[in-house]
């Protein structure tokens, strides 16, 4: 044992000594950006992390100065504070020594061009007779080696490392040439154009030869390429990204990850406009197991400002001259789209300029809107609106937008040019209402609209794959990727010279051929809301009825002979009946003679939902979400019931495929309140009520002294047998109460059985060991065993040190208990309670020691292990029953009797359900289904 202890200490010391005393490279100075158009409280931090830099984490640090922040702290106390840590992925070092690493036989040269505020640009070129003098004059060095993996540390340290910009790829035709001749397969719907009489509609698979362009590219040999120099397809197929380009004296590392972080003002790390902040990043490196090194970058400062609002860069106006209606779309695109959530815009106001004003006066920008009337205000909405529609607009009206931000700064757009369109005929959904959501905590509103609809698509398929491959090389067909998959055929009028350079010759065409019997796959969707109470679809195909009770949204009709069949679909309600409205029924003729697939006919419009507090003031209406055209409801979740206090109104916009708009008037008012009973749980409530009533009935009668027969439980008699055997052998008993905590039913039952076991152990004067997983269970177990020993009249035999806590770690506990069984040679082991993966480890170890073992658990996944490795097992509810059976309390036995009767009731319900479902009656099972789906 002493040797083992020494080995442990020596290993620990060695591991500490092995920590390398190497420092990571200095990180690059971060680049700071003040987000434009915001309230001056966001900073974007970014920098480059090069692949050859070791490190596991960057810490972003900030030193704060400035009037607002320094109110709370003196300058002396100010220091750099960690804003956030960012983990980085470090590539594992690889010692690369492949033929492709060596570029010394090629004339590739490298030089750098400095860039302002950034790493230099690395330029690699192939030396030719034409460029030789000019390239060498720039001080270019010959590249002798490229690295596609990060080399080990000792190789990195051999020569200086320069970080540069240049996403180079090494093209290796010799080693990767095999890829060229691998047949390429593309799926294209071109068949109909050439062979329209085939029993198949859909994409064909074309097997293609490489194009002449690809073959010529391969023939160029080894190349160093930037992404823009060739199509990405070639780059990824034949190239690999270079990490470092190495000359005799310098390593140029060119592969890096852009690390960035958007710091938003928060309570812990506030950002105030016009305050100055200084940032740096710290690279953290850990040498396993415990050594850490840090390296800081240079510092950089920023003063965020509250800039005026930014006009949406995709502000468009769709004008229908027939109705004199104008739809204005307000959205940001590109970079602005990524940062639009940071803008502090408050409202959009659309004005009509006075007649005669030809251009927008520039000097009025950023002036308080209220103080400078600049035209006729047409509409003012909150800045969350996606689109607005204006009526009575004349073609020569000049419309412009004014955006206001949180501190009243404004920005005006130029006059918005009109795009003449024809208005889309958008229809507002019928029956639209907004109301408080039922059965919730008072933090949700719901909007419902329209009638329930059943949408169906189907496909006719072969039961097993039946593909035909047809060689079409004789036809000289060429596939042109750039022209979206069209084919060209060499003919009298089209010669080989007219075939595009990138075209690929078609070798084979693959398509399915229908068999004698086909399968029909029906896929459906129910477009409905909670008021419709739709449950699942019911279909009749060729007079064969099928219901989708689990609502998988899919069903299959198999082995259908060719012909034309009718498919009728309906929606089944929770009550078991069918929805009556015509939209909820479909009737389709399906031609079963060729392989075909249809698509859903989904609406091409969507809904935008706005919530407001004043129906007269549109600036109070803020965008809260959108719903698809197939949706029939929208749930507005406030998140917190405190935010849902008061009176709310809703506006729904329908936005068409050409972005035309129609909107409802404000809907409401909606008063949101919490509910005091969840009616969707009513069936559960009734079930619990019935069960409790039956249990109380038996408990009441047994309390009155009435006798009931209680069934015997086979496993219980073996507890006495195990205890007796342990006593005969003079070896201790071990009781394991499982890995559950005191709140688990199985643990409570286990402790009841422990009381019985302890009582017998005291009676037989045997030692009882109870290793515990949970400290509270340990305390209860100690009390239980102590009471049992006292009740048996042998408190002197009680040993508190035998009922102890081991560890709340699963396998640590399993290892400790297994060791205990072996060391103590326990003669009887009890495993009662909740167990997980350690069950077999415990039971098998016990079995190997020859102990008699009794187990009991309600965990179905562990039962097979106990059944296999233990002598007797209490299965599932037998564990609960055993605790009641062992108890001398008559009321416990009354509950056992109630349990038996309730099981009989469950069996009766099961039999009725099976009989009803088999007979095609589903309303009975739907009662239980409705509970399960809530």
């Amino acid at each position, binding site marked *: *044992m002493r040797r083992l*202890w020494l080995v*442990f200490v020596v290993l620990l010391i060695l591991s500490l000594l092995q920590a390398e005393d190497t420092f990571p490279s200095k990180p690059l100075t971060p680049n700071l950006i003040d987000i434009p158009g915001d309230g001056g409280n966001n900073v974007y931090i970014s920098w480059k992390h090069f692949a050859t830099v070791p490190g596991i984490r960057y810490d972003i640090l900030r030193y704060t100065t400035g009037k607002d922040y320094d109110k709370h702290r003196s300058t002396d106390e100010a220091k750099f504070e960690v804003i956030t840590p960012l983990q980085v992925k470090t590539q594992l070092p690889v010692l690369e020594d492949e033929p492709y690493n060596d570029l010394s036989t090629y004339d590739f040269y490298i030089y750098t061009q400095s860039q302002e505020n950034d790493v230099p640009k690395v330029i690699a070129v192939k030396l030719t007779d034409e460029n030789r003098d000019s390239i060498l004059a720039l001080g270019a060095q010959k590249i002798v080696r490229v690295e596609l993996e990060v080399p080990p540390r000792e190789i990195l340290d051999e020569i200086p490392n320069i970080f540069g910009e240049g996403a180079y790829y090494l093209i290796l035709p010799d080693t990767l040439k095999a890829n060229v001749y691998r047949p390429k397969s593309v799926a294209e719907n071109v068949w109909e154009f050439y062979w329209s009489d085939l029993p198949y509609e859909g994409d064909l698979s074309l097997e293609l030869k490489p194009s002449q362009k690809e073959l010529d590219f391969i023939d160029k040999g080894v190349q160093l390429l930037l992404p823009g120099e060739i199509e990405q397809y070639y780059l990824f197929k034949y190239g690999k990204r270079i990490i470092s380009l190495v000359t005799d004296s310098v390593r140029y590392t060119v592969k890096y990850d852009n690390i960035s972080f958007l710091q938003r003002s928060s309570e812990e790390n506030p950002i105030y406009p016009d305050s100055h902040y200084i940032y740096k990043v710290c690279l*953290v490196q*850990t040498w*396993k*197991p*415990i050594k*850490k090194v840090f390296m800081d970058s240079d510092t950089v400062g920023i003063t965020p400002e509250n800039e005026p609002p930014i006009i949406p860069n995709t502000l468009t106006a769709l004008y229908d001259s027939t109705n004199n209606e104008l739809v204005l779309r307000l959205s940001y695109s590109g970079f602005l789209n990524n940062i639009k959530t940071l803008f502090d815009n408050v409202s959009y106001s659309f004005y009509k300029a006075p007649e005669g004003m030809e251009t927008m006066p520039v000097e009025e920008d950023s002036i308080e809107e209220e103080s400078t009337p600049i035209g006729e205000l047409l509409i003012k909405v909150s800045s969350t609106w996606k689109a607005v529609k204006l009526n009575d607009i004349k073609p020569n009206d000049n419309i412009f937008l004014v955006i206001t931000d949180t501190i009243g700064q404004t920005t005006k757009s130029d006059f918005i040019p009109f795009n003449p369109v024809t208005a889309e005929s958008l229809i507002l959904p019928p029956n639209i209402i907004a109301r408080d959501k039922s059965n919730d905590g*008072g*933090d949700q509103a719901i909007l419902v609209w329209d009638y329930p609809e059943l949408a169906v698509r189907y496909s006719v398929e072969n039961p097993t794959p039946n593909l035909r491959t047809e060689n079409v090389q004789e036809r000289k067909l060429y596939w042109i990727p750039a022209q979206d998959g069209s084919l060209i055929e060499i003919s009298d009028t089209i010669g080989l010279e007219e075939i595009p350079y990138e075209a690929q010759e078609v070798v084979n065409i693959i398509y399915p051929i229908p068999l004698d019997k086909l399968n029909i796959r029906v896929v459906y969707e129910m477009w409905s809301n909670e008021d419709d109470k739709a449950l699942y679809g019911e279909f009749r195909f060729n007079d064969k009825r099928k219901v989708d009770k689990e609502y998988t949204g899919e069903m299959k009709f198999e082995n259908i002979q060719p012909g034309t069949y009718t498919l009728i679909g309906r929606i089944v309600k929770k009550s078991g009946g069918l929805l009556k409205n015509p939209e909820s029924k479909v009737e389709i003729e399906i031609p079963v003679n060729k392989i075909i697939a249809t698509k859903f006919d989904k609406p091409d419009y969507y809904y935008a939902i706005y919530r407001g507090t004043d129906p007269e003031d549109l600036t109070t209406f803020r965008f809260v979400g959108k719903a698809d055209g197939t949706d029939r409801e929208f749930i507005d979740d406030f998140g917190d*019931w405190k935010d849902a206090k008061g009176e709310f109104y809703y506006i729904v916009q329908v936005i068409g495929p050409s972005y035309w708009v129609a909107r409802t008037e404000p809907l409401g008012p909606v008063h949101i309140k*919490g*509910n005091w009973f*969840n009616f969707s749980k009513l069936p559960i409530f009734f079930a*619990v009520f019935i069960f*409790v009533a039956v249990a109380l009935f038996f*408990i009441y009668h047994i309390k009155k002294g009435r006798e009931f027969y209680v069934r015997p439980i086979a496993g219980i008699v073996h507890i006495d047998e195990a205890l007796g055997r342990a006593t005969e052998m003079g070896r201790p008993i071990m009781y394991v109460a499982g890995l559950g905590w005191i*709140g688990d*039913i199985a643990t*409570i*039952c286990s402790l*009841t059985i422990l*009381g019985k076991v302890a009582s017998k152990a005291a009676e037989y004067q045997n030692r009882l060991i109870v290793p515990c997983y949970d*400290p*509270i269970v340990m*305390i*209860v177990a*100690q009390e239980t065993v*102590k009471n049992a020993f006292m009740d048996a009249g042998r408190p002197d035999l009680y040993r508190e*040190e035998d009922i102890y*806590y*081991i560890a*709340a*770690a*699963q*396998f*640590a506990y*399993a*290892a400790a208990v297994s060791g205990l069984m072996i*060391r103590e040679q326990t003669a009887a082991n009890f495993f009662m309670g909740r167990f997980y993966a350690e069950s*077999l*480890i415990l039971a098998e170890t016990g079995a190997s020691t020859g102990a008699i073992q009794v187990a009991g658990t*309600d965990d*179905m996944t562990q*039962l097979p292990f106990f*059944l*296999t490795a233990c002598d007797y097992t209490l*299965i*599932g*509810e037998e*564990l*609960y029953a055993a*605790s009641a059976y062992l108890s001398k309390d008559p009321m*416990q036995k009354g*509950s056992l009797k*109630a*349990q038996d009767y309730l*099981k009989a009731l*469950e069996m009766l319900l099961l039999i009725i359900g099976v009989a009803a479902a088999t007979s095609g009656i589903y309303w009975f099972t739907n009662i239980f289904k409705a509970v399960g789906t809530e």
Partner: protein
Amino acid sequence: MFWKKQLPLIIVFMMGLIMTVQYFIPHHVSKWVYVNYVDWAIVIAIFGAFLGYFSFLRVHITRIRKKTSNWVFSIITLASLLIMIVFALIDGKGSDSLFQNMFLYTSAAINATVFSLLAFYISSASYRAFRAHSAQAVALLLAAVIMMLGRVPIGDKISFWSAWGIPSINTVSQWILNSPNMAAKRAIALGVGLGSLLMTLKIILGIERTYLGN
């Protein structure tokens, strides 16, 4: 006696009733009660942990003092406990802290080792269970063979009879899982559900008092 017997029973009765009713009430007040209840349970469990550590220390210190067999292991156990506490105090518990590294490279590795023993125990347990010593054991053995073959690709390859419309080994193994096995599992699940409900009722009504240590 009131503090040790009646008061806990009253608390359990009240809380049991409140939590049962809470399940049917979606109101935010009900959610507030539930969230606070869960928080209390966590706080109480933390106090419980101290009791566990006390017991743990007492057992191992006693072993060292009495120099019982294998008492050196107790020194290692207590040293490990102390080292982890010191590391956590010095360097925190972050992703690259000393504490985390010690956990990953010692405790996690040992846990994985113990877990890997399961593979061998499953083999030895299967060997014992699948011995064909009775009619039931033969049925079990057959089912096991079908299941094992059904889980690997060779099961489908050797099912030459499937060409004549007879179900393949894969199909039969899937049927065993989905029909007889599922039926047995659901029967156990129904019994467990019912037993849990009645046990809960007994606890609320004070009929079951094991958790009080008697």
